[in-house]
Structures are given as structure tokens and as C-alpha cells.
């Protein structure tokens, strides 16, 4: 059944401080809405459970990209189009620019926000593998103050995260120290445009003196939430890029992931594709090494 606008309250307190005061006054009562590309789909279909919504779209403090020599800080309501257009993100964090270009169409990218993608917490979220492999840190905000958590600890279960009832996702911090790393991102979906991924893998790695000195693997659609493959990373860290290492990493990945059968794919297909993506990256790493 079609959603009825009269059944949903939507308020725009205006400033970030006023939004935080509202969340503090009635923790858990209000659902923040930014670009609406997730919540409005549910609304249109008549299955939006939230009846009190508070607007974040148009709050300037949340739509910023700040660059220092050490890091890039992205406000939670920055759109994927903003990310695609940003020179430093294209140059220094190319996987993020590429993932942003894969998120739906131009009309979705002009509205969908990075913070919304993370808070929504889809296991298939396009930006998540990239943020995991770039070692992102999440900053939250509430009337009580701000705190930071590693993004790899942000999701706690299917569509669950560490945000308290009065907290908003405020910003995403990305360290700028991957210039020498070999970087990899591949999304496997039904078609190139508009498709939700069946499985996606992002990777950054550094090879020093013939062994893997650093590696981070971020995966989508292989677990109930976007997941860093820490056991697979452990199987690779300090190892030379031999056939045995690749086989051990494939085994570690298969032991670590828990994909499911759903309308988009099967668990078995996801497992097979995931190990092949990992191998593709490792062979590339062996062939090309870290970046010069």
C-alpha cells in the first residue's frame, strides 16, 4: 500500500545544534533523514515504520570535505556526487571516487550521502569496502559531545551499529597514507549501471622486501554487514606472494565469510567469486608490486 504523507511528521529544526537538542530531548523517537534515497523508497511503498523524522538535508556542517596533509574529513551528509567531483578524493582516495560513481544513477548520487550509506548498514553498501580498506574512522556527535570509533567496529550486526539513540554520524576521517599502496576495488553485480552488488572486494596492500608488509581487505555481501576480512589479512601478513600464500589466503577467506542465498545471488556463487577476486588482487600485487 502507498505511504500516506499525513501519517509521518517531518521537521527541519535548521541547525545541527537544534537537531541534536531534539534527539537529546526524545532519544530514539526521531529518525534522521538526509538524501532520502533509502527512507523515501520505504515511504513510497508504505513500509516506512518511522513516523517522526528530522531533516538533515541542507545542514552545512554536515556537507563538508576538509583536507589536511594527513587526512580527509568528510561530513556525513556529503553526497556521492560531491565525492566524485572532489579533486583530492580522485587523486588520493581513488577507490572512493570509483565506488561513488557506482552508486545508482546521477539522480541517486546527487542525493545519497556517505553517512546515509553507512548508517543504513546494508551488507551490500558500495562505499563500505572502500572505507574499510582505507582504515576509516567514524566520528559521532550528540548533545553530549563527539567520539571516534574505527569504521571496522561501526557495524555490530545486520543493520545495527554503535550509534546511541541521541547520536548522529558526524564525519568520516580517512588517513592520506595510501599513495604507495597497491589499491584494488571490484564489484560484481548483474549489470554495470544501477545494480546492487552480489559481492564486492576492496583491498590496499604494501609489499616490502618481497613480503606483504601491510594489507587491508574490505568486503560487501559476504557477511550480515560490511566486513573487514581480518583472518584473511592475518594469513597474508608477512608472507611472500607465492602460490602457497595465495592458496592459504583463499582457505582463510572461505573460513571467514558467511554469505547467504538471496534474490541477488547464492552463497556458493558469492564464496567462489570472493576468493577469485582476492586471487586477482594478489596476482596483481605479485605482478606489479606496490605503487612506485
Amino acid at each position, binding site marked *: 500500500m502507498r505511504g500516506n504523507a499525513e501519517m509521518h511528521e517531518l521537521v527541519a529544526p535548521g541547525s545541527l545544534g537544534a537537531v541534536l537538542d531534539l534527539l537529546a530531548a526524545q532519544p530514539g523517537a526521531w529518525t534522521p*533523514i538526509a538524501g532520502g*534515497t533509502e527512507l523515501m523508497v520505504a515511504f513510497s*511503498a508504505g513500509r516506512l515504520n518511522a513516523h517522526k523524522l528530522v*531533516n538533515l538535508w541542507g545542514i552545512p556542517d554536515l556537507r563538508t570535505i576538509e583536507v589536511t596533509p594527513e587526512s580527509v574529513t568528510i561530513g556525513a551528509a556529503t553526497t556521492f556526487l560531491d565525492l566524485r567531483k572532489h579533486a583530492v578524493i580522485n587523486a588520493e582516495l581513488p577507490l572512493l571516487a570509483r565506488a561513488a560513481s557506482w552508486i*545508482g544513477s546521477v539522480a541517486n548520487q546527487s*542525493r545519497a550521502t556517505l553517512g546515509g550509506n553507512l548508517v543504513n548498514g546494508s551488507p551490500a553498501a558500495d562505499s563500505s569496502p572502500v572505507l574499510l580498506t582505507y582504515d576509516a574512522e567514524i566520528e559521532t556527535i550528540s548533545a553530549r559531545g563527539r567520539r571516534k570509533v574505527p569504521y571496522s567496529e561501526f557495524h555490530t550486526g545486520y543493520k545495527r551499529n554503535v550509534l546511541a539513540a541521541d547520536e548522529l554520524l558526524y564525519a568520516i576521517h580517512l588517513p592520506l597514507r595510501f599513495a604507495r599502496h597497491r589499491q584494488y576495488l571490484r564489484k560484481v553485480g548483474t549489470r554495470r549501471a*544501477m545494480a546492487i552488488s552480489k559481492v564486492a572486494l576492496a583491498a590496499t596492500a604494501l609489499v616490502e622486501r618481497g613480503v606483504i608488509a601491510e594489507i587491508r581487505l574490505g568486503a560487501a555481501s559476504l557477511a550480515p554487514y560490511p566486513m573487514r576480512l581480518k583472518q584473511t589479512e592475518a594469513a597474508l601478513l608477512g608472507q611472500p606472494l607465492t602460490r602457497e600464500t595465495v592458496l592459504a589466503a583463499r582457505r582463510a577467506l572461505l573460513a571467514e565469510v558467511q554469505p547467504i542465498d538471496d534474490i541477488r545471488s547464492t552463497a556458493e556463487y558469492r564464496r567462489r567469486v570472493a576468493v577469485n577476486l582476492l586471487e586477482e588482487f594478489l596476482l596483481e600485487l605479485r605482478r606489479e608490486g606496490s605503487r612506485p
Partner: protein
Amino acid sequence: MRANGKRKPDAHWPEICFTVNGESLKVCVPPMKRLLDVLREDLHLTGTKEGCGEGECGSCSVRMNGELVNSCLVPVLQAEGSEIQTVEGLALDDDLHPLQEAFLHHGGAQCGICTPGMLMAAAQLLANTPHPSDTEIREGLAGNLCRCTGFIRIFESVTAAASASDTDPAQEPLLEQTNHAR
């Protein structure tokens, strides 16, 4: 507003102001009402179509503050203060927009349901990229589905409109004029 007796009086809802095709307007509607429905039901601008209602098909594409958006996914409160351009704002009185001319001449429209969205996505593309490559056209229209034409004639129409503005530079500003012309 229709007087069917069941609707709450308009005064119940906050005033929301924005500009549509250059005209300043004010509506009193539920803040969660979709921009698409406000355009069609309250402003009677029925050129904007509803297809999927979930941001996949692009039929409801309009331009908001110079960006392409799916109007089915915009709660009207978020349009407060914005400049909106719909398909009705493309032509200047009787003069069709170069894209509309090109769609006519190259068979870019069949049943017509997707056409307003296609035109708005193409207008957005040409505003940012006046001379798009084939790949850029495909990417610019990737969010707009057509079930009749097979897309090729639509892509050809956009290419033709881009080269028409190429040979006649005087036509190029039309893309931006329409928001302010009235």
C-alpha cells in the same frame, strides 16, 4: 485543491516555498509529501511521471538547484527555498528546447512515459558536459529506463542535440535560461 470533504484544510500544514520553472510558488502540504506528488497534484504539472516510485527508473527526474533528482524520493520539505526545473520548463513558449526537437526528429520517444525524465537527465548532462562522449551519454542516462525505444534512438537524439548546439552557439544558453526566463 480538490474539495472532496475528506482532506484536512490546507492551513493545517506549514507553508513551503520554492521556485518552479522560474515562478515563485507556495504550497501548504504535508512536509513528507513527495515532490513528485506536489508537482502533479497540487501544481498540476503532470509532465513529470511516476514510474517505479523507488528511484530506479528516472521517470520522475527533475532538476533541483542544478542537480538531477528523482522527485519521488524528495520529501517536499527538502525542496524549501530551491529552484526546480521540470519538463514543462524546457520549452520557451512555442519554441521547443533543442533536446525536444532532437527527440522528435530522431525517434527518441515512443509511448512517452520515460521521455520527460530522459529529457531532464539529458538536460542535466548537457549543462555539465556540452559535448558528451557516447559513454558519458550512457552514464548520464543510466538511471532512466525506456521500455520502447531500445535506448539507441534516445542516445542519438542527445548526440544530435549536443551537435545542434555546437553548430548554433546561440542555442546553448537555453539550458540555463529556462529557469529564469519567466
